[in-house]
């Protein structure tokens, strides 16, 4: 069994490969040298899609059979000129049945029914009644997280709007932010103006959703209709990445000091783990550095879901200093992988 770690950075992507033990890793790259690489996913047909962008030549979609050889898709997501919206970057991909979804900046979701070659806008979201009141976060007005039930339910995290949900495969949307403090109040619309940073769903129960928000960690047991705070054991309310190991339903996050400082509390780069659905969190530090003042960005953490009878799942993350860390035992021990990369934008793990 082969495990591959695809690391997207501000100036290219890097590929780390290992066997099922995930102890020694071989690094290749950069792929797309000079290009910002912001997302990668399986395309649903045995291949992969990735998102690249440049300040000069804009964003585009890439396709590959093997994570190494890439070809630019002829048609990337594109808003109509009439809409006035600009497509600036893909933040995330998600599967919905046989279709692929892409969450983008400016905030919207596009759908591909041909494994990433062509894309059409889910207009119900970008024409939502609250759209005129959507306010960009520090990282832009971006649809950065998509989770689905695999059929027709979609949850979309948008900064700094909040979570919007659809039960009809993206035709109509409602805001799902009750119980989360509003950061940017709007005079006309309630239910938006929250600043979601990441969302994940329980792999066994799509009604249970976890949420790292600008103002804390939250959990919903009713598909996002209401949220409760789950902070016990976390050193701060602020942070970006949140991932869940599908085989054990273990959660991982990386708190930062505050929205003003955006570095690990006291410079101690630590991952926090919850094995009870977020009821409490435990600090993981073995192999992780102190005196580290770099953030772990929103998409820069991943799991490989390899937990089983003889091994534990892998957890991976990269930081803004271009350091990549890997654990092959659900975070008990960490090693820093080879290389000092450009700013790490995302990390994704693939097992084959």
């Amino acid at each position, binding site marked *: 069994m082969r495990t591959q770690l695809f690391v997207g950075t501000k100036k290219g992507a890097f590929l780390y490969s290992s066997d099922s033990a995930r102890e020694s890793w071989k690094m290749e790259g950069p792929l797309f040298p000079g*290009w910002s690489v912001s997302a990668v996913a399986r395309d649903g047909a045995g291949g992969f899609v990735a998102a690249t962008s440049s300040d*000069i030549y804009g964003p*585009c979609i890439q396709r590959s059979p093997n994570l190494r050889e890439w070809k630019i898709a002829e048609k990337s997501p594109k808003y109509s000129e009439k809409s006035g919206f600009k497509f600036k970057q893909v933040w995330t991909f998600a599967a919905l049945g046989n279709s692929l979804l892409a969450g983008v900046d400016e905030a919207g979701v596009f759908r591909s029914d041909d494994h990433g070659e062509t894309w059409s806008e889910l207009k119900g979201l970008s024409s939502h009644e609250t759209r005129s009141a959507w306010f960009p976060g520090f990282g832009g007005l971006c649809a950065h997280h998509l989770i689905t039930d695999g059929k027709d339910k979609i949850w979309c995290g948008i900064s700094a709007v909040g979570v919007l949900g659809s039960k009809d495969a993206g035709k109509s949307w409602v805001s799902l932010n009750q119980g989360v403090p509003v950061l940017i109040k709007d005079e006309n619309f309630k239910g938006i103006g929250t600043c979601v940073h990441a969302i994940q769903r329980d792999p066994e129960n799509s009604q249970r959703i976890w949420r790292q928000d600008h103002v804390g960690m939250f959990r919903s047991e009713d598909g996002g209709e209401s949220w409760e705070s789950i902070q016990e054991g976390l050193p701060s309310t602020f942070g970006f990445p949140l991932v869940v190991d599908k085989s054990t339903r273990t959660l991982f996050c990386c708190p930062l000091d505050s929205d003003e400082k955006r570095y690990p509390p006291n410079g101690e780069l630590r991952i926090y783990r919850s094995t009870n659905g977020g009821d409490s969190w435990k600090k993981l530090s073995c192999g992780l550095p102190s005196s580290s003042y770099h953030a772990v960005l929103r998409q820069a953490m991943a799991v490989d879901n390899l937990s089983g009878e003889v091994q534990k799942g892998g957890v991976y993350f990269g930081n803004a200093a271009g350091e990549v860390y890997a654990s092959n035992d659900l975070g008990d021990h960490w090693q820093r992988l080879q290389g000092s990369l450009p700013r790490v934008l995302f990390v994704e793990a693939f097992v084959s």
Partner: protein
Amino acid sequence: MITVLLGIRSVEVTASTLAGALQAAYEKEPALRQLLMDESGSFREHVLCYHRTAQGAASTRWMATLNVPLTLGDSILIMQAVSGG
């Protein structure tokens, strides 16, 4: 940076105007259009396009129209406006 993605440095086309040559290049290499053009069909802000003839090079920024006649052997040069330290 375009070469990194497309694997080519140039496209040969036959056309009688600058606009026609660009259109022909986009038909040969469809990804070129999205790399060079924004939603409104204009060149992206930091993309520079020069019409090069035997007499010299002229930037499209200062042209009122791209319906500029071409002569056999003319070329179009795409550059990225990158400056600063």
